[in-house]
């Protein structure tokens, strides 16, 4: 099923994205995704604050099997091994927002 913006997101990922590889059921799925990496204060304490690093991948849903984008799955982002924390559909379902952490 074609989704709104499909014709735009592909070229956008190709232009601004970085290579992402997901191995699922023995097959490698390779495409481009956009990575955002942000440090932010996540927990205020009595004397300071814990800062956490959030890594968010934006992927085209059709490029990867959703069943493989699950918590604790391994994913390679621009050559770096990461673990998926969670994945959720965005927009009209054409994009997937994947939270990751370095392994």
């Amino acid at each position: 099923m074609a989704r709104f913006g499909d014709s735009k997101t592909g070229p956008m990922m190709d232009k601004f994205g970085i290579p992402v590889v997901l191995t699922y059921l023995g097959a490698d799925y390779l495409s481009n995704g956009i990575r955002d990496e942000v440090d932010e204060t996540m927990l205020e304490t009595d004397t300071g604050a814990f800062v956490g690093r959030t890594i968010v991948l934006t992927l085209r849903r059709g490029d990867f099997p959703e069943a493989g984008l699950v918590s604790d799955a391994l994913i390679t982002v621009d050559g770096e091994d990461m673990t998926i924390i969670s994945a959720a559909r965005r927009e009209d379902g054409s994009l997937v927002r994947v939270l990751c952490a370095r392994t």
Partner: protein
Amino acid sequence: MPAAATENRVIDAVITRLQTIGTPPSSWNVATPEVAEGVPPDPVPVPNKARLYVEHSRTDPTNPDAGTASHYHRVSLVVWCVAKTPRDVATLKSDVLRALFAGEGTFTASFGQPMWPGEFVQRRDLSDAGVAVGQQVVFVDVELTHSAP
């Protein structure tokens, strides 16, 4: 030089006990954790080992109506337990308490009371960063002397 502040002496004593985690002769659930005073200024790394951060939380009078000859206060600290999953955090917390219980004699000799465990709370605040955190309160009731408050 006068004695160090009571709160700082309590922190030092707790850190010394926590640094025994993972070391013989006792047996422990986790390998030697990193132990530090205060929370780290940099982003918390995704845990490849357990980490403990100790900070002073508050000091409260426990007998405000008593006379002026003695001053009893409760010094509360927070031991932040950082690990990969909430289950790992709970395991780490159990070793924290094990270490503090094993130091009862030391705490009593230094402060007149053992170190007591307070509430423990699992925090989800850093879960988007792949980090699990637990908040363990510990406290000791001390008499602040005029020479070493």
